[in-house]
């Protein structure tokens, strides 16, 4: 039973560029949430997708956007990258959101 998988594992970008991160949920899960984890901090909620729609959003600017596909996989897009966007980006999946969220190992994004 495959867990949550994320790609790529590590990415290096420069300021002003755009990036796309990918997530495949755990088998049987239909809801995907994205979190940003800065070094030494707990994860911060970015947004959640369910039935291909953004259902909830945290306190992040609209440079952060996402998408969910019919197979429940999801993408996180970040435009106009800033140095402060350097972090571990985590994807979590659950069944209809009202169940425990299970996390992938994340994508480590470094901005130069």
């Amino acid at each position, binding site marked *: 039973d495959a867990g*949550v998988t994320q790609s790529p594992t590590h990415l290096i970008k420069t300021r002003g560029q755009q990036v796309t991160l990918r997530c495949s949920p755990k088998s049987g899960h239909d*809801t995907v*949430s994205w*979190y940003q984890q800065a070094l*030494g*901090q*707990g*994860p*911060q*909620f970015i947004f*959640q997708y369910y039935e291909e729609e953004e*259902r*909830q959003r*945290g306190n992040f600017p609209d440079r952060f956007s996402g998408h969910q596909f019919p197979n429940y996989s999801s993408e996180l897009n970040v435009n106009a990258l800033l140095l402060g966007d350097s972090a571990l980006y*985590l994807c*979590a999946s*659950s069944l209809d*959101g*009202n169940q*425990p*969220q*299970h*996390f*992938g*190992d*994340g994508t*480590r994004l470094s901005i130069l």
Partner: protein
Amino acid sequence: QKEVEQDPGPLSVPEGAIVSLNCTYSNSAFQYFMWYRQYSRKGPELLMYTYSSGNKEDGRFTAQVDKSSKYISLFIRDSQPSDSATYLCAMRRVDTDKLIFGTGTRLQVFP
């Protein structure tokens, strides 16, 4: 003031010790409480998931929730070096899936 407060540690204990990890919170609307374990360069792994107040036990782990004091705890019995990791508490309201995390406590168990 943060909604969830957690001592960052590090907490260093000898193998076999009982470990107590704690979080306090300010939002009385939180109803679901979780503990995650995060190894270096890995994602958070769900350890315990509880609803409302009370205790829950799973092997060497016991989670306690005291909603009247807005205080949650995770106890680890017979701690092992493999328990060395960062432990994150998380919680949410019943009307949202958004998890609010503490900063995490780094635990080191030495042989």
